[in-house]
């Protein structure tokens, strides 16, 4: 049963620390998204890759966030340094543009103290 896998599922860290979240997209999918979900802002698009190339990262605070796809099986989202306002659930999703299918991972719940 193909699924998007995210690690870690939960992370508690202190302000100023580096946080790296990882995502393994479904094999064969050519698009990968990073979303952040908070009660106040809802679901915000942070970054979007197609065929490993970043197409849109306009929603991401560039001074502290970075997103990469070092290969087709791994997407990473890094926050350095982390701040309490980064506390949220971060979702990765992968899909195929042609068919429109898009599936979400279980999310990484980040708490920055």
């Amino acid at each position, binding site marked *: 049963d193909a699924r998007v896998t995210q690690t870690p599922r939960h992370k508690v860290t202190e302000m100023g620390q580096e946080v790296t979240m990882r995502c393994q997209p479904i094999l064969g999918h050519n*698009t990968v*998204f990073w*979303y952040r979900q908070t009660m106040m802002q*809802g*679901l915000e*698009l942070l970054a*979007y890759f*197609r065929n490993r190339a970043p*197409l*849109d990262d306009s929603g991401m605070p560039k001074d502290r966030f970075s997103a990469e796809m070092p290969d087709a099986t791994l997407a990473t989202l890094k926050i350095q340094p982390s701040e309490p306002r980064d506390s949220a659930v971060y*979702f990765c*999703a992968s*899909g195929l*543009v042609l068919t*429109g*299918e*898009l*599936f*979400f*991972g*279980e*999310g990484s719940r980040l708490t920055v103290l």
Partner: protein
Amino acid sequence: ELKVEQNPLFLSMQEGKNYTIYCNYSTTSDRLYWYRQDPGKSLESLFVLLSNGAVKQEGRLMASLDTKARLSTLHITAAVHDLSATYFCAVAHLNPYGGSQGNLIFGKGTKLSVKP
């Protein structure tokens, strides 16, 4: 800029009743998604609507898309408690050449509560 608006944001229903959730979007798009999210869980794909007039049904849920009106509806028939969740619609950006750019913008979600 693509904006997606859902209404209502909160919906309390009695079991057995019917209701409709609306999703309006501000610019042309070629695809619209409906997702369900249970508390503390991920987003579960319900429907992908790819063309004007598309209608899809799964159990007590039916989704439709009118691209000319930039409107999608999610209709709930004879609601049951298990349908209690938050429902999101999401709309894909088009690139300047009219093809799907793929990145999705989400509405704020409709929190549905079905009471016995």
